[in-house]
Every structure is written in structure tokens, then in C-alpha cells.
């Protein structure tokens, strides 16, 4: 009996229900938001698709930064690899089926993830950050140099994906692209929720806090992070391929330091270490940017800067992080 009680307290019966429940709730909210987006902003689906594509990049970044504590300003390398691979498959190899392009993107993203992982794990802290910057610049230069393959700085144009499943054209309104993106995002989100809650996810969080401790438990820090990098690469690859399919052009910006830095800003804005933070960060940043840059295309940067400052001052753990900490505290107070 005592043993049973123990077990319950540890596993936390109510906690278990709450966890699973909050996951379902989270996915439900994402679905609801996606549907609302479709009907509320039917004229803005291109923007929404772009947001989804970037959100996948930010999610992927969250996996290594938020869950494993790897500082990186070069994550666009993974995203761009996915985008260029999908684009080149279509332009040079005639692989124009969107799902096949997606698969190529995922493979390329994973490969780029593994490569970045191998290099980035050679150092910690600032030097690690510098390694990641070096990687993204190398990728960028390589794509610039190989212009016969990539179109160089003019961009890889003329990507013409077939209709999705042979039925749905990628149209001017981006309806197909949007729905395609939403489905991809949901699949990725559900898979990642499972991954981060699994023992593997717990191991990663441990590594983030104290790798030495993890080694003293007999677990391999590098091996674990490499796995996470591979997953992260696949997710970024999805984002990149989605970008290539929906915009039908791939530019060097998708491999740039700027995009990497922006992704990091969005992640921190939303809150690291929780997938929802990544989503909320991306959506709020890009949406805010879209509004203010349309309102004042000349000086909107100042307003975005002010927003970032305000977030640090009033929501230091990011929008989602701070909100969820606040809710947690309220719950605790009530108990």
C-alpha cells in the first residue's frame, strides 16, 4: 500500500492527467488558431505560410538551444540546406512532387544538422556561438559560389512544384501551401512533444543544466546532442522545404546569419525550452513586424526594437515562459 502511494505521488496521478491534458489543449489551440487564420485572413495566407515555415525553423532551434543549451547563431544553415535541396531537386533533377521535395529537404536538413552538430560541439559558450556563425557563413558562401546550381545571389528561381497529391495546385492565394504547412506543423509539433517529454528529452534538459552531471550518470553528452541535432535538422529541413515549395524561389537569405539571429530573437521572445514558446515567439514577432512595417515601412525597426526591450523588462522569460510561470505560481498559491 505504501509503495503504491509512493508511486502515485511520484508519477503524480493528477500531474499525469494535467500533462497529457495540456498537450491535447496545446495542439487543439494550434489547430483552432490555424483554422481561424484561414478564415480571418484569407488574403494573407502567404504571410501565414511564411510564418509557419519560420516557426519550424524556430522550433528546430528550440530543440538545440532551449532543450540542450547549445548556443547557436547559425541555425539557418539547416533551414537553408532544406530549402536549397528541395529547390535544386525540383530545378535540376525534376523532382517536382511536393512530398518528394519535402523528403529531400528533410534529408538535407538532417545532414546539415549532423554536420553542424559535429562542429558546434567542439566548444562551449561564446566560442561555440562563433563556430555556429562560421558554419552559416560557410554555407552561405558555398551557395553563393555554386551559382550554377543555386542561382547565387540572384536566387534559385523557377521552382515549379506539382499539385499536392496530384490534386491541389499551389495557387496565388497560397491556400494549398497554407494547409500543407499547417498539417506539417501539427505533425512536427506532436512528434516533438512526444520527444521532449520522453526520457531522451529529460536527458537533454539535464545536459543543458549540467553536462558534467550527466556524464557522471554514464550518459553520453555528445551522442545525445548529436541525435537532437539530427532531429532539429529534420525539422528545419521541413521548414526550408516548405519555404521552397510555397514561394518557389530560394534566396541566399535562407542561409544567412540574419535569419539565424532573427530565429534566435523569436525564440527568446517566446521563451526557450517549451515548444509553444517557439510558436508564440515566431507568430508574435512576424505578425508584429508585418503590422508595423506596413504601418511605417521606414521606421518600424525602432518599434520592433522597443518591443524587444519591453519584453525583456516585463516578460524576462519570454512571452510564453513568463505567462506559464505566472499561471504556475497562481496555481501554487491556490493550493
Amino acid at each position, binding site marked *: 500500500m505504501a509503495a503504491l502511494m509512493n508511486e502515485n505521488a511520484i508519477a503524480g496521478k493528477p500531474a499525469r492527467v494535467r500533462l497529457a491534458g495540456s498537450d491535447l489543449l496545446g495542439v487543439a489551440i494550434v489547430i483552432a488558431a490555424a483554422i481561424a487564420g484561414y478564415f480571418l485572413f484569407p488574403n494573407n495566407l502567404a*504571410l501565414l505560410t511564411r510564418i509557419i515555415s519560420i516557426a519550424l525553423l524556430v522550433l528546430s532551434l528550440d530543440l538545440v538551444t532551449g532543450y540542450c543549451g547549445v548556443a547557436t547563431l547559425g541555425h539557418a544553415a539547416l533551414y537553408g540546406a532544406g530549402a536549397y535541396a528541395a529547390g535544386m531537386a525540383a530545378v535540376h533533377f525534376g523532382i517536382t512532387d511536393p512530398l518528394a521535395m519535402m523528403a529531400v529537404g528533410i534529408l538535407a536538413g538532417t545532414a546539415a544538422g549532423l554536420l553542424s552538430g559535429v562542429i558546434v560541439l567542439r566548444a562551449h559558450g561564446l566560442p561555440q556561438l562563433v563556430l555556429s556563425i562560421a558554419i552559416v557563413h560557410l554555407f552561405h558562401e558555398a551557395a553563393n559560389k555554386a551559382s550554377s546550381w543555386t542561382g547565387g545571389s540572384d536566387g534559385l528561381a523557377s521552382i515549379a512544384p506539382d499539385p499536392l497529391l496530384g490534386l491541389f495546385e499551389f495557387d*496565388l492565394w497560397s491556400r494549398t501551401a497554407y494547409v500543407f504547412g499547417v498539417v506539417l506543423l501539427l505533425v512536427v509539433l506532436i512528434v516533438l512533444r512526444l520527444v521532449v517529454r520522453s526520457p531522451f528529452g529529460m536527458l537533454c534538459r539535464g545536459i543543458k543544466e549540467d553536462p558534467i552531471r550527466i556524464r557522471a550518470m554514464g550518459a553520453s553528452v555528445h551522442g545525445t546532442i548529436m541525435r537532437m541535432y539530427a532531429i532539429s535538422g529534420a525539422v528545419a529541413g521541413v521548414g526550408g522545404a516548405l*519555404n521552397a515549395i510555397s514561394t518557389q524561389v530560394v*534566396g*541566399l537569405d535562407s542561409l544567412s546569419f540574419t535569419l539565424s539571429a532573427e530565429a534566435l530573437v523569436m525564440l527568446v521572445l517566446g521563451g526557450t525550452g517549451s515548444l509553444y514558446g517557439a510558436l508564440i515567439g515566431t507568430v508574435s514577432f512576424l505578425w508584429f513586424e508585418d503590422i508595423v512595417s506596413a504601418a511605417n515601412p521606414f521606421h518600424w525597426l525602432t518599434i520592433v526594437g522597443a518591443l524587444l526591450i519591453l519584453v525583456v523588462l516585463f516578460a524576462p522569460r519570454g512571452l510564453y515562459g513568463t505567462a506559464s510561470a505566472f499561471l504556475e505560481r497562481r496555481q501554487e498559491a491556490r493550493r
Partner: protein
Amino acid sequence: DTIKVGVIGPFSGPFALQGKNFKAGIDAYMAMHGDTVGDDKVEIIYRDVPAPDPAQSKALAQELIIKEGVQYLTGFYFTPDAMAVTPLLTQGNVPMVIMNAATSAIVTKSPFVVRTSFTLWQTSTPIAQVARDKGVDKVMSVVSDYGPGVDAENAFKAAFTAAGGTVVEAIRMPLSTNDFSPIMQRIRDSGAQAVFAFLPSGPTTLGFVKAYNQNGLKEAGIQFFAPGDLTQESDLPALGDTALGILTTFHYSVAHDSPENKAFVEAASRAIGNPAELSFPAVGAFDGMHVIYKMIEATDGEQDAQKAVDAVKGLAWESPRGPVEIDPESRHITENIYLREVAKSDDGTYYNKEIQTFEKQGDPGLAAAN
């Protein structure tokens, strides 16, 4: 009715100056010609793409077409941003008037693209002849390693070799180069009599021109040829004396002597606020607006991309840069290219003095690509 025109360009970030010039050109045109065409009122909607970003550009174009209902898309400082939008034009029934993006191939991507700026091939070809005329046999080409740089290099190489000279060496430097001393040393060591250079305007140009002077290349008599981006008017105050005597070929100088240009400069200066910031994208925008007004006239305010584009094929007019015409074949602008020299005026300001005219230049780039 209100006819909406969507302008996509870099209005913030590192290229904000160019976007500002777009706006100045547009404002100047509308100040001079009113904001109505017939019964229709023209409304401009600006969207910002701070640095080349085709995905963003496409999303914005889509938003402009679908949500804002624009009938014309224009602006486009960077080639990839324009390229990304071309697939939308047919479906959206929207013509695109490019005010800057200078890679030759864009006009081939859609029949609804018209360009009122220039191409690097167009501006870099005549300077080869100039160099030959100055008795230069051996030139070293130095360009920034990106699309326009590569175009400039190819155009110059083709023309210079055709004119009987040799390009002893051609190097492409990364865009991020800050320190040009080693490049200058390279140029010296190459034994060339002159250097042909292309860099985007802004800090790198300044660094390059300064390095050219400070490393003694000017003293050593190595001549300097470039397309006009290098001596863009907005950079001249910063370049100062170091730029004196540099020879460039370009389609437009703010100092171009014509009544049309005087009126344009006056209106555009007022629009931009600080006249020192005025340079070539403004004239591309000014003429772009001219084309759009003609299109509106021809279609009577109706949305009909084919009719609009057809109406301006072969359209000729007197632009602030001189006489121009939209080539009916390529829909690219045919214009004069001027040889200019940086000079100092009496009031101490610097300007591009036009000293020779190459008339009615088309775009050799398209031909070269085929």
C-alpha cells in the same frame, strides 16, 4: 476610382537610402503630375524588404495583390525579390515595373515585367571602350562577389576583349570585405595599367576608393574605371577629394544638364529632404511612375495587365536622364549611357560631370545570355 500601386523596396536597414530614393522619385513624379490620372486617383502603398529576401518579397506581393488589391507592382531594388514575384503576375493580372533590380534575365521571367532602370551589362559595357580610348591594354577587374558584380565583370570582360584589350586578372571579393589594402597590393602586383571595379554603393565603396588612394595606386598612375554605382551622388560627400578624376559610365547623373532634370532634381530634393541623399534609384522610380501613369491612361483604370504592358511597349519620352524608350521586345529601357568624371563644383560640392554620351544603349546582357 482609386488605383493602388504597391511598392516593394528596402525602406529600412542597410539599404534604406535606396528605398528613400524610390520614394523621392515617386513623390516627385506625383508632385509634378498630380495624383490623378483621368478620373482615377493613384494611391501608393509601400512595403519594406530591408535586404534581399525573396520569400518575404513574395508574401508581401501576394498580400498587396490579394488583400490591398493593387493593380500595379513596382519598386524592387534586388533581383531575387523581383524574381520571386514574377510567377504571381499572370495569375494576379498585375504588371510589374522594376525601378532598379538590374539582372538582365528578370524581364524574361514574365511578359508583364517592364524595367525603367538599367542593367549592369548596359552600364559596364561602354567603359571598356573608354579604357581602350585612354590607351589601356591591360586591366584588372575587381568586383564584389554577387550577382551584379559578376554581371559587371562579364560585361566589361566581353567588351574589353572585343575592343582588343586583355583583362589580366579578374577577382571577386566577398561582399563583407572591409579592408581593401591587400586587394590594392594585388592590383599593383598584377602589372595592370588600370583597374575596373564594381562594388555596391555605401561603406565598401568608400573603403575601396580610399584604399586606392592611400595605397599609392593613384600616384602610380593606375587608372580607375567603373560603372556609376561607385560614384553614386549620395556617397560623393564622404568620398570627397579621393574620388576626383574617377571615370564612370552610367545612365544618370544628378548633374545632367537638361530642363527636365532640373525640374526633377528640384522636386525630388524637396521630397527627400536632404538633397545630398539623392541618387540614381530616384530617377528609376520617377520614370517607373511615368510608365505606370501611361498604363493607367491606356487601360482607363481597368485592371488589364496585358493591355497595360502592350501600351508602353515602344513608349518613348524625355526622362531626366535624357531621351529613353521602352524596347518593345525586351520591355527593358533603352537609354543614353554617359561617361562621367567626378569633379568639384565652385561651392565645394562634388558631382558627376558628364563628358561623353553613348546614345541609345540597349541591354547587351540578354543577348549575351542567349
